[in-house]
């Protein structure tokens, strides 16, 4: 199993210092003890609301942030700790990132072809002719005409820009791509196109994805396994069908209930109250207990650990410990 893992994350902690004046400085614990794997050619969905820390986790995996604790292994190399620099340089070309906002992800003053070729230029891997050939090949792969290379980003729609961003991510034939809300800024009819493209590319090249999203329906369409994150901790991780059909954690249940369905006849259950707690002053015990319909006295003092509740399935909830 370990041989198969592209990504191994263990007990990942991330804290930021906030506040300018030294006296008022506090730490914001954004991620706590995150552990998950992504296998070769697999998609792990990472689902959470804003402020859950899901984007931070994705950025750590591509080396943008150095975590404050825990370890991250990419392609068997540890990119945390003393070997960080050398190992990061070694895996850099095989790890890529697709951003949420296709308007901000492309330099408006660079031709699309130059944006796509930037990873190639930095790696210094190709000659000029190979480079332009490769750019055209990449454009075709994402379903754009070859002459798109000569244009500027403002000439493209949101969905087309996201294709360009994907082409750039594919430039060095990566084995793993972090997709941070790749379709949430797109129109519904464009979302489906981009989702299908990502899945085709996975089938063809065996790329592993960490697919970060707040939209549970999109994640169901792309992921094989799903991790649900709340206020910086994973509360449940399971195979897709298990998670959607029999959600265990009360937060996962609430989240699924809250999604509006295109079915006017559906009778909605009670709506969960409250809001995501501030990470500056998180509640003691289980971080979800302030909103949980099943909260017990124990939940207010003791934080539940993520533990196996069924084969291949983990949940962090006291409800499942006694079973």
């Amino acid at each position, binding site marked *: 199993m370990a041989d198969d893992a592209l990504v191994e994350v263990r007990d990942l902690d991330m804290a930021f210092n906030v506040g300018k004046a030294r006296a008022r400085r506090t730490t914001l614990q954004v991620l706590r003890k995150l552990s998950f794997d992504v296998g070769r050619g697999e998609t792990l969905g990472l689902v959470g609301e804003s402020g859950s820390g899901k984007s931070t986790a994705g950025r750590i995996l591509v080396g943008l942030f150095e975590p404050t604790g825990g370890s991250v292994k990419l392609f068997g190399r540890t990119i945390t700790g003393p070997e960080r620099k050398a190992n990061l340089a070694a895996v850099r070309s095989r790890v890529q990132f697709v951003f949420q906002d296709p308007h901000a992800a492309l330099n408006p003053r660079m031709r699309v072809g130059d944006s796509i070729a930037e990873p190639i230029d930095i790696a210094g891997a190709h000659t000029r002719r190979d480079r332009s050939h490769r750019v055209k090949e990449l454009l075709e792969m994402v379903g754009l005409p070859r002459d798109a290379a000569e244009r500027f980003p403002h000439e493209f729609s949101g969905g087309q820009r996201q294709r360009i961003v994907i082409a750039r991510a594919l430039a060095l034939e990566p084995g793993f791509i972090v997709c941070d809300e790749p379709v949430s800024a797109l129109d519904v009819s464009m979302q489906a196109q981009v989702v299908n493209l990502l899945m085709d590319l996975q089938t063809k090249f065996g790329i592993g994805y960490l697919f970060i999203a*707040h939209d549970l329906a999109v994640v169901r369409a792309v992921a094989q396994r799903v991790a649900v994150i709340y206020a910086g901790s994973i509360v449940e991780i399971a195979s897709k069908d298990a998670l959607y059909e029999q959600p265990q954690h009360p937060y996962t249940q609430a989240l699924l209930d809250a999604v509006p369905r295109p079915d006017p006849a559906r009778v909605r259950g009670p709506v969960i109250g409250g809001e995501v707690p501030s990470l500056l002053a998180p509640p003691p015990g289980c971080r979800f207990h302030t909103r949980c319909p099943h909260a017990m006295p124990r939940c207010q003092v003791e934080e539940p650990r993520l533990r196996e509740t069924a084969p291949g399935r983990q949940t962090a909830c006291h409800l499942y410990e006694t079973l």
Partner: protein
Amino acid sequence: MASPLVSIDDLTVQFRTDRGWANAVEGVSFDIAEGECVGVVGESGSGKSVTALSILRLHARGAARYSTGAISYAGRDLLQASERDLRRIRGRDIAMVFQDPMSSLNPVLTICDQISESLRLHQGMSRAAARKKAIELLDLVRIPDAARRVDEYPHRLSGGMRQRVMIAIAIACRPRLLIADEPTTALDVTIQAQILELLRDLRAELGMAVMLISHDLGVIAEFARRVIVMYAGRIVEDAPVDVLFQSPRHPYTEGLMASMPALDGGAARLYAIPGRIPDPDETIDGCRFGPRCAHSEPICRTAPPRLIAIADGHRLRCTPRTRAADLT
């Protein structure tokens, strides 16, 4: 059900572009009845927000113009009304809630100041009375600890709380029509569910009509009684909510529904409508959805389709299908 509350007739709105005036909305006509709950769904460039802003004539003069049409409210054409009359209608008779609760509130004024503003303006309330009313309104939109929160500044509130404040401001003068333009798009799913529930309850309580604009068919399905589907500046379909979701007639409506990933299982591969959304100033002969349509016929490329009633309360803009409905 006598005369409608608001009636939009053949509205065309144009925007200034680098290459002259382009139609952002073309020939849009529909009514909103007293207390009705209309959903308008569409993607970017569909003209759904442009239509909504036109009702209150909120487009910047010089950048937009109303080339045809009328919007009648209480026997008056809002497109011809004086600025003074409009100001009296805005916020009092017709109110609006926007997508971004972060920039819709003034950061240097307290919640109380901002809610009081329209109360004092439209109803001439005293400062103390307006404050009391503001606290009542915060209670009504279910902001906990309203008496204390009323004196806070917007930056102290979360996104969901700010949207509640925006709703409180909007309903302060008991409007007859509330226009909600993507009110939950910037919010998390659980908060979105709370806000939609709040809007639904308020609508029932206050008996106002609501026009909800959204790109999300799920939100529309849960909220609206009647749905207007817009594409590239035109209404393509208008139907009661259960009719629309059970048997959509326009190929675009069908495509939109098929391309939504389903939460409850379903196909592995998503259906994708091919092509892209046209720019407003692109010329497309015939039906504007034609180039992307799977059922396109020769006639679709020559004659622009008309919006035709195919059943009671069901209108459709699709030449082959309205003709088929005619024959049966």
